[in-house]
């Protein structure tokens, strides 16, 4: 069982990202689950979304999770939410920030001793898609850190998932995914 928790703000696309990732993984024969805590669902409010992946049918519907990966797609949530809650010793963190990994850990001591990767998903999304929607860059970074799939397969899958968007936006997302893959450290 692979479990992922997303920390996001409502409107940044964590739910779409989690469902998109589930869709990609499902095509490889694995069982998937993607869900979110909505709370009162005000745009900009802190929220969490979740992925479960397994070789067998996923029967567990509890919301409690000790994640293998934590994705933080809004830079401020590292300080205002507890992104390390219910962690394991092996939990890996991919965090969007304009800082280096060392600077980030120095600014948030809870991350000390943890396996932390960083990149600036917000800046990448701004530069490529033209809007601060950091979900697809996070998935590009996840592909690099996890080595889950090769990029050609992943990008092709994401093109299918984004198919209802204008071609220009799809192309921009592909560039964003590749940049994130290349820039995550």
């Amino acid at each position, binding site marked *: 069982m692979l479990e992922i928790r997303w920390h996001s703000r409502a409107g940044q696309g964590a739910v779409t990202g989690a469902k998109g990732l589930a869709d990609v993984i499902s095509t490889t024969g694995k069982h998937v689950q993607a869900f979110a805590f*909505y709370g009162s669902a005000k745009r900009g409010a802190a929220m969490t979304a979740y992925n479960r992946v397994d070789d067998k049918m996923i*029967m567990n*519907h509890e*919301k409690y999770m000790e994640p293998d990966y934590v994705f933080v797609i809004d830079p401020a949530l590292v300080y205002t939410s507890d992104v390390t809650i219910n962690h394991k010793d092996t939990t890996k963190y991919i965090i969007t920030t304009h800082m280096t990994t060392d600077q980030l850990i120095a600014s948030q001591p809870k991350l000390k001793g943890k396996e932390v990767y960083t990149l600036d998903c917000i800046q990448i999304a701004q530069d490529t898609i033209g809007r601060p929607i950091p979900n697809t860059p996070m998935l590009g970074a996840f592909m690099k850190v996890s080595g889950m799939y090769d990029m050609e397969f992943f990008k092709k899958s994401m093109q299918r998932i984004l198919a209802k968007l204008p071609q220009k936006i799809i192309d921009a997302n592909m560039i964003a995914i590749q940049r994130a893959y290349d820039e995550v450290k």
Partner: protein
Amino acid sequence: MAFDKMKLRDIEVWDGNFAAAQAMRQCQIDVVSAYPITPSTPIVEGYAKFLADGYVEGEFVMVESEHAAMSGCIGAAGAGGRVATATSSQGFALMVETLYQASGMRLPIVLNVVNRALAAPLNVNGDHSDMYLGRDSGWIQFDAYCPQDAYDLNFIAFRVAEDHDVRLPAMVHQDGFMTSHTAQGVHTMDDDTAYSFVGEFKPMNDMLDFEHPVTHGVQTEEDWHFEHKARQHNDLMTKVFPKIEAAFDDFEKLTGRRYNLVEKYDLDDADVVVVCMGTSVETAREVALEMREKGIKAGVLGLRVIRPFPFFQIQEALKGIKAIAALDRSSPNGAPGMLFNELAGCLFNTDTNAMLSGYVYGLGGRDLTKRHLTDLYVELQANVDAGKITTPLQQFIGVRGPKLAFL
């Protein structure tokens, strides 16, 4: 047919709402009369989009309340069409008056109920309060545990409800957010196969058949009211189960997926059993398997059909079980839980020695964790070991503050 077919992959990653909307598209509903409410809104939105995009030949009626939504469904069903809608919580509560009209008038409407708590305090999350509110309304009630079930049970609901020997409306329940907004793999049917399972709508006593005029919604006083109600109850008690079982059999032949009136998991040699509904059934299944590795003979019984209540099937399934927990996800507000009472009724006149205890859990979407269920099985095993119930008969799982227990 004057609409486009949609190409689906064998497995689509859908949440429960979208699964239900797709089933409604494939059943080619004639009329959806709807008013939106969280968390069920995407079902009727989905149908409306399919209609606008030319994938359905039907009509979407926007109304001013859920009371009007069900009233519109009643009118359309009386006129003679395949009719469905969806609602939750407060919307369901506002619909209640009309629910009794629909069943009393024997109109085969399908209502997707995305289970949600009832205010006050206001809460949009999933529990079974609305589902419990509907249980005396004369509708058939199916219960989904996951998005796949929400898809499949819609087809089964139409097949059963529209059968001329049944002619009763049916609800398909799914847990708010836990199923409705949780995306999982759903095995799909292609449009032709799916439609072939429900078939073309065959009207009966339809008001638009001007050759054979009929009256719907009449008044009967003490001269006939009781006979109508007794006949409705008789049909629910005697005619519905054989039709549901036939539909389950045919559905299995078509898809390979098997449904049962009660879903039994590892009950044959079980000592301790959790009885519950919705997503909790699947979580409990997973925990029961883990308990068996620890030497506790654990099982799960899930209700697939809540009304009519599968009395004898449950009696049979719980034979030889030593300790049973009835899990109610709705506040009984001054009584034992519904499931506790129904199970007690099932078991009372039998030679069972089972110990039955009730638990209230998960109100307003409060998480039911694997840890909770593990502790529950351990508690049931302690009852078995002690040879008596060691706790009060009614306990609360997962509520903060001092431990609450009654009876």
